């Protein structure tokens, strides 16, 4: 079974970076999970990671190959 993973890095200054990855979840679900884990912190910034774009690119490429195969 695939797992949802949340990696949290706490710096010496106290700032926190959280990265969520896993199958199927929407951004809002991941943000909710991160906020639930860190109720005493506020979000200052967020971004989709290169892994997201890589997955998205691979999905598009597969769709294109399937489309070409159909024709």
């Amino acid at each position, binding site marked *: *079974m*695939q*797992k*949802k*993973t*949340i*990696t*949290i*890095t*706490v*710096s*010496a*200054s*106290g*700032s*926190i*970076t*959280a*990265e*969520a*990855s*896993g*199958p*199927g*979840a*929407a*951004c809002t679900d*991941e*943000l909710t*999970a*991160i906020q*639930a*884990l*860190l*109720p*005493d*912190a*506020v*979000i*200052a*910034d*967020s*971004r*989709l*990671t290169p*892994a*997201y774009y890589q*997955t998205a690119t691979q999905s598009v490429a597969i769709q294109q190959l399937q489309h070409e195969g159909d024709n």
Partner: protein
Amino acid sequence: MSLEVLLIPVGIAAIAAIREARSTDLCEKCKTTRIKDQQLLQDALVAMGGTNLSVAQGRITGDSPYGRITFQQIGEVFLGRVDGADDHVTSNMLAALDMSVGALLQQRTIASLHARAAEMGMVLVSQTAANGEVQLVFEQAT
């Protein structure tokens, strides 16, 4: 899906709030800090060797290894100084305070993460420390 989020503990201020804070007549020669939580300031001062702390709403005075200290909340954040000392003495004291605050926040965040993850049914897969940073990896079955 993969998402990265930067978070700031509630006891400290975002950069904009720090920039807005200015020394005033309420705390002459004070320099700004990033601390907005008075209890966090008090705990950090004790951790860096502060003694005889006198605490009032928005104001802390006391003794420190750098000399007599005064902190006053101006807007969101606290400003502080070493009374009657040169600017560089105040800067050194505030640098030590900032390290103390960072260490406290790091300890508290890690303790809170362990508790919250257990409540949420997440498993701590690994915890590693390097270069002052602590990284925790949690996993949950989907």
